[in-house]
Every structure is written in C-alpha cells, then in structure tokens.
C-alpha cells in the first residue's frame, strides 16, 4: 500500500531466523563467543519442528562396544546412497555425542538402564544398536534449550518473520529485513551475520508431519540472496503416519510401534505391512531388511500400493503391530498410546489390531549448500539444521536429525559470531533496498483478489502428486509449467482480505507462498534433472540407480532464472575441517 513503508531500525551482531534446536543451539554458541544475538521466531518460540520430534538421537556413546564413529559415518553414507557431503557426515558422526552431553549439561536426562548407562535402541537404516533418547522427546530438548537462552538473556522475538537478507553491493550480508507480525511493523536488523535455521519444507506437501510454519522460508531466502542449494530434489517421507482423522493425517506414529522387537534386536522382524489383499508387499522391494528397511524404501513401497489401488478405503495400508512390545511402548511413549487410543481405538492402542498407516512429508534432505562451518556462498549468511543440505545425502537415518541440528547449530553460531566480529556493518546500511522490498510486499494489502490459502493448497497438491514419493519426467515438466503459470498470472492477483496489520495470517501466507514457489520450482527442477532413482528420489521413468549419477545437483539463480548443475561429490574418507580461529 504505502510506497514508503516505515521500517524500525535495530542492531545485532548475529540474527538467527528460527527458534528450533538448530537456531537455539546457534544462539547459545554465538552468544558464548561474545556476539549480541537475536533469535527470530515466526510464531511463538515453541512452535517448532524440533518440538514435534520423537527426539531419538544417533550418537556413538561407547556403550555398545561393537559400534564406533566410523560405523556411524558409514551408516550415514549407506543411508544417503553415497552422495552425502562426506565432510559433513564425518562431523556429524564425530561430534554427535559431545552435543548429547551438552544437552545433558543443559538439564536433559537421557533414558537410561542404570545410573551411568543410557538405553540404546535401533533406528531406521542403522546397523548397530546406537540411538539414545529421552521420554520428554523433542519437547524436552527444546525446553532445556530455551531456558539456556533465558539465563543468557538472549532476546527471542516471537512472531518475527525473516523476509529477506539485506546485502551490500558486493553481495555481503549487512542486515535482515523482518516483518513483526504481532505489530504489523517492518524491522531491519543491521548485523554482520544472519543464520538461517528455519527448518524444512514439509508444508509444501498436502500430507505432512511437520508444523505449519515449515514453508521453506529460509531456504528460499538463501536462494534469493545468491546462495546455492544442494540435494534439494531429495525429500524424506516418513513411512508410518496416521491416516485419519483429517486433523492429524500425516502425523508420525513413532518407530517403536513399527519396529516391534526389532527396536531392541537387529535380527528381529519389524511389524509386517499388508496391502488390502493381505500381501507383505515390502518383500518385493527389500527382501533382505524387509519391513526394517530404510524409510525411503518403505515409504515408496507403501505409496505404490496406495496409488495402484491396493490400499485401504481411507488411503493407507495395514501395519500388524507386535503386542509383545506394548508394555515397554506404554512405559516409554505413553503419549503415543493415548493418541492411538483417541484416534484409532483400544485394540490398536494395545497393539492387538492392525493399524492404518500412510507416508507423509517429513524432512527436507537438501537445502542451502554449506561448508563444514555452515557458511553458504554468501558472505555473512550461515545455515544450520534442516535448512542446510548435504549431511544426509539422498536419505536420512532415523534419529540423525536431532544430532544434526545440535552439531551444525553450534558450528553455525560459532562461525557467525566470528564473522560478525570483523564485518564492520554500518547501522542502516541497505535501508533503501529494504524499503523497496517492504513496499513490494505491501501491495496486496487491502486490494481484492485471490486468497493465498487457496493457491497454497494448489501448490501442496501439485507437490504431493508429482514431486513427492513417485515422480516422472512428464509430470515434473507439467508441474514446473503450472508453477510458472501461478507465478505469472496468479501471484499478481493475490490479495490480503483483512484490514488489520496485526497478526494478518493472509499476509504471512502470501509471503510464505512466494517462498514455497521458489523452493517448489527448485525441487521439481532438480528432480527432473536427476534421471535415475536414488534414496528418497524415485523416478518411474528411470527406476534404477545409476552410478553415473553419483554426484550432487546444485541449484542456484542466474539472472533470475534457476540454474541446475552437476557437481562432483565432496568425498573425504576422514574430514579435516579447515583451520578455524574459533576452535
């Protein structure tokens, strides 16, 4: 509306977008390195993806004498179908346990068998009993962390949405343009470094397990700032999610219910999965690991049954749970028993009757391309956690997101604090650009036109149908065409109905929609380019893995157009991270 929107100027050393564990761990590290830190949360600080996690945490604790960090590294690469950034995978394996102890120091109490002995369990795709966890799950992890921010007096700004980074003529980050949704006011933080910790893109899909905030904002902001994305064609779907009721469709059903005795014993069978003909269809896809296979294989197997008409009327398949684990399931995860009871029934909650399950969009495997210190290609722009790509390759081990966000959250915080120290940013630098961008985002206010919520739904359906678990060239091309049509003819017609600037959800959704389109196009373009099947990426027209494709796709923007190019793998048997002053 206004051609000259008012922007409140603020200053910080490091601005962190995202209040999940990656953002909070970055905040702790940056603060402890001497930086003035502000954490931006798009909603209330606790509305995060970490919060929703089961909190299972892969780390080599030393409690299983057969396991070691080399094995964790190898499992990560095996699961990632060999295209992980080896440096990042190595760091994950090496540092996960130290970060688990950090969490314990913060006050988290990992589940244990004895006073000094953590309980270990198996996880999807792993080859050793390795995974630790705590009964308070992602909630507990975020709670102990938020209180660490509080004792450090770190500012957490609720309802502050990062809209774009502000860069100088040399392309260096000098600030963050932020919409304070709670007041309907623009703010520009002049800062030496911005950390993107906004999580993933699960909301690009019709059925997803994540929180409603995960619209890929940070990844899109990185792309617009000139950073590159890597592995963005890989989206992880959790195979085992609730099918009904509508409100929780897609929410994950926790691995212990699915794993049965395999939770404790790698030689045991996981719960059998049956189609409507009573066939164990997973055996066609993975006769060796069967239902204990990796998440990508299981999710695709289930989706194919559903697509080919062998699912239930509600749109799922049947999981036959193992009643023997009910006692420990109830003890370890009572909330899931309650959830099964409320939504499915008592027999299902007691693991005595078949449970309907379906796949759901869970985790964005790709993201902004980073180096071992979470530096993107844009000076001053750092990325950690789910918004970053490369750690997990083409598929992620269950239980590896929790250590990822701790390990790389900390690294991002340390490196950003170091960078900000010498950045020499002047207050108000880039204000002219910020005003122009804000003015552009105000144009739909108060005019008549299409509602963002409807367009969002169209994008989610296109992504679910054609850029999801089952992909093919024709559909990817038509989806890209549809996205381009939406961008050209629909976006200019978007309107924000409400008159109030305060917590104007449609306004927020309009900004999210632009981010969703940027990322949806990137995902579809990379998926179209990768003419093979690997990990979470399945092409019906190229159904086999192709050794020639053992490489990464990098997506960037050249003069406004998407540019997809092949790059050789970052392959190092043992990482030696570049010398870095912070350590």
């Amino acid at each position, binding site marked *: 509306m206004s051609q000259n929107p008012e922007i409140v100027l603020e200053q910080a050393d490091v601005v962190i977008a995202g209040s999940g564990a990656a953002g909070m761990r970055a905040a702790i590290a940056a603060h402890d390195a001497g930086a003035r830190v502000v954490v931006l949360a798009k*909603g*209330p*600080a*606790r*509305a995060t993806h970490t*919060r*929703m996690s089961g909190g299972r945490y892969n780390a080599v604790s030393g409690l299983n004498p057969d396991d070691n960090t080399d094995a964790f590294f190898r499992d990560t690469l095996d699961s990632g179908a060999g295209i992980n950034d080896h440096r990042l995978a190595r760091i994950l394996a090496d540092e996960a346990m130290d970060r688990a*102890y950090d969490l*314990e*120091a*913060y*006050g*988290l*109490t*990992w*589940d*244990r*068998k*004895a*006073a*000094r*002995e953590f309980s270990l369990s198996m996880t999807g795709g792993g080859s050793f009993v390795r995974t630790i966890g*705590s*009964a*308070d*799950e*992602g*909630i*507990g992890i975020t*709670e*102990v962390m*938020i*209180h*660490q921010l*509080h*004792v450090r*007096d770190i500012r*957490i700004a*609720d*309802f502050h949405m990062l809209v774009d980074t502000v860069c100088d003529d040399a392309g260096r980050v000098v600030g963050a343009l932020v919409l304070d949704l*709670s007041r309907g006011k623009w703010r520009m933080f002049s800062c030496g470094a911005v950390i993107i910790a906004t999580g993933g893109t699960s909301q690009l899909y019709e059925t997803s397990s994540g*929180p*409603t905030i995960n619209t890929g904002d940070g990844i899109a902001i990185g792309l617009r700032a000139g950073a590159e994305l890597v592995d963005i064609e890989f989206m992880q779907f959790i195979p085992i999610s609730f099918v*009904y*009721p*509508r*409100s*929780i469709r897609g*929410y994950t059903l926790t691995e212990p219910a699915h794993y049965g005795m395999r939770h404790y014993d790698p030689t045991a069978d996981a719960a059998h999965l049956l189609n409507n003909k009573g066939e164990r269809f997973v055996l066609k896809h993975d006769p060796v690991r069967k239902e204990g296979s990796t998440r990508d294989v299981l999710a695709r197997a289930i989706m194919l049954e559903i697509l080919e008409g062998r699912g239930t009327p*509600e749109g799922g398949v049947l999981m036959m749970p193992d009643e023997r684990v009910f006692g420990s399931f109830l003890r370890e995860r009572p*909330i899931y028993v*309650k959830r099964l009871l409320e939504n499915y029934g008592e027999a299902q909650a007691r693991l005595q009757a078949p449970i309907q399950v379906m796949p759901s969009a869970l985790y964005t495997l790709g993201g902004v391309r980073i180096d071992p210190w979470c530096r993107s290609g844009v000076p001053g722009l750092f990325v950690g956690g789910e918004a970053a790509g490369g750690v997990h390759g083409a598929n992620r081990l269950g239980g590896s997101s929790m250590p990822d966000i701790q390990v790389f959250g900390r690294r991002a915080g340390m490196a950003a604090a170091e960078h900000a120290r010498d950045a020499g940013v002047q207050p108000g630098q880039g204000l002219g650009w910020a005003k122009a961008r804000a003015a552009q985002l105000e144009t739909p206010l108060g005019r008549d036109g299409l509602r963002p*919520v409807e367009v969002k739904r169209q994008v989610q359906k296109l992504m679910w149908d054609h850029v999801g678990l089952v992909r093919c060239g024709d559909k990817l091309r038509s989806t890209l065409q549809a996205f381009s049509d939406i961008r050209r003819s629909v976006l200019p017609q978007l309107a924000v*109905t*409400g*008159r*109030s600037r*305060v*917590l104007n*959800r449609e306004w927020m959704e309009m900004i999210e929609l632009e981010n969703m389109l940027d990322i949806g196009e990137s995902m579809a373009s990379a998926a179209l380019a990768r003419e093979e099947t690997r990990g979470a990426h399945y092409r019906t027209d190229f159904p086999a893995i192709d050794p020639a494709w053992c490489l990464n796709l990098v997506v960037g923007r050249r003069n406004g157009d998407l540019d997809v190019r092949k790059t050789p793998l970052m392959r190092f048997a043992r990482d030696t991270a570049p010398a870095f002053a912070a350590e």
Partner: protein
Amino acid sequence: MSTVHATVTVTAEILRYDPTSDAAPRYQTFEVKGPANMRVLDVIRSIYEGQAADLAYQFACRIGRCGTCAVRVNGTPVLACQEVCKPAMRIEPLSPFPVLRDLVIDRSEIDDRYAALELVPQRAVPHDGTPEPVDPKLALNICAYDSCLACMVCVSACPAVDERPFDGPAFMLKLRQMAIHPADQRNRLPQALKGGMLECFGCDLCTQLCPADLSPAQAIRDFRRDMIFGAPR
C-alpha cells in the same frame, strides 16, 4: 473407523478483538459442518478458510506438542488441537494474558517469568562429558516434568491465580523439575514460596486439565512436604 464419517454442525461464537483499532471485544457467530470427531482447531481453521479471512488464531503442530493453540472453550482452557468440538462453543483467547488480536495471546510475559526462575541446573562443577549419574526412574520423572508444554492451560484454569498472588501451577512444576534434578544445587523451595506456592487451594484442576497428563498439584504438594519435613537431599 465408523465414526470417521459421521458429520455434525457446530455453532462457534468467537471473541474478536483488535486492541489497535477496536473499542471493545465482540462475539462473532459461525456455523461449521464437519466430522463428529473434529477438534476445536479444525473448526477454527475452517472458519478462517471459508468464512473469516481476517481471523487471528495460532497453531503449529496440530498434535498437542507445541502448546501454542490454547484457548478457552465455554470457559474451560484447552488445547484447541486436542479438544473435540462441542455443538455450541464460545471460543475465547486464553486469559489472563494480554491479547494481541482475536484468539492470539502475547506470550512474552510468560517467558519473562520463566526466565526469572533461572530454570537451568545450577551445577557445583561443570558437566564432565560422561553420562551423569542419575537413577533411571528419577530420570524418567525429570523427563515427565520436562514434558510440560508451557501451554498455560493450568495457569488459565487456576482459581488461586485468579484471586491471590500466585504465579501459577506451570511455574511450580518447572521449579520442581529443578528441585529433583540431581545436578541442581540451588534450593528451589524459596523460589516456589516467592511464586506463591502456599496460595494453591489444592483443587487439582491443573492436573485434570493438563494436556500433557502432568500433575502440577503434586509438584506443589511435594514442595509443601519438603517445607515441613525438609528436602530428602
């Protein structure tokens, strides 16, 4: 499975208020048709999607974990995503907190209160990077307290908060988490007393309404026992 397809029509009266422009709050009535087991959040979302594009409401996880969708339904504080809808509902923002707009409250003062309690283990010596000795059962108890969503349902429901100088059940529960944590060397009882622990009526309403199935009332009873008999450690 049969209940999946039963349909109901519910009437929802929603308290609308924009402090930046409205003189006073007002109720607006909507009708929503949907599955019988739809949650209050489904009703609110449907109103936003189909009838009131300018409605301000908050949710994120839709599964009872983020704790940010708490509202009052017919006077009772609940998580909107967990509460099954009723035929006639009056939906209001969570009191006694400041309203940003419509159903959304400003939670910053809540976190200021948490911050003042310094809810991190105050250690005699730094954590040494090996498993901390904690009895497995005690670890589970700590985890239970650490599962508190900070949703403020209990604080909103508490009659003592309404009438007396009492911070509320959720804050007592978090203090209790610290009190039983073996690494925390600080005496948390004075903080609980300062927060108004003795003002609790013992009505147990907090326990009945807690969406995480926790008992803040028991945490308060434990503190009271410590006050009389001394803490066990």
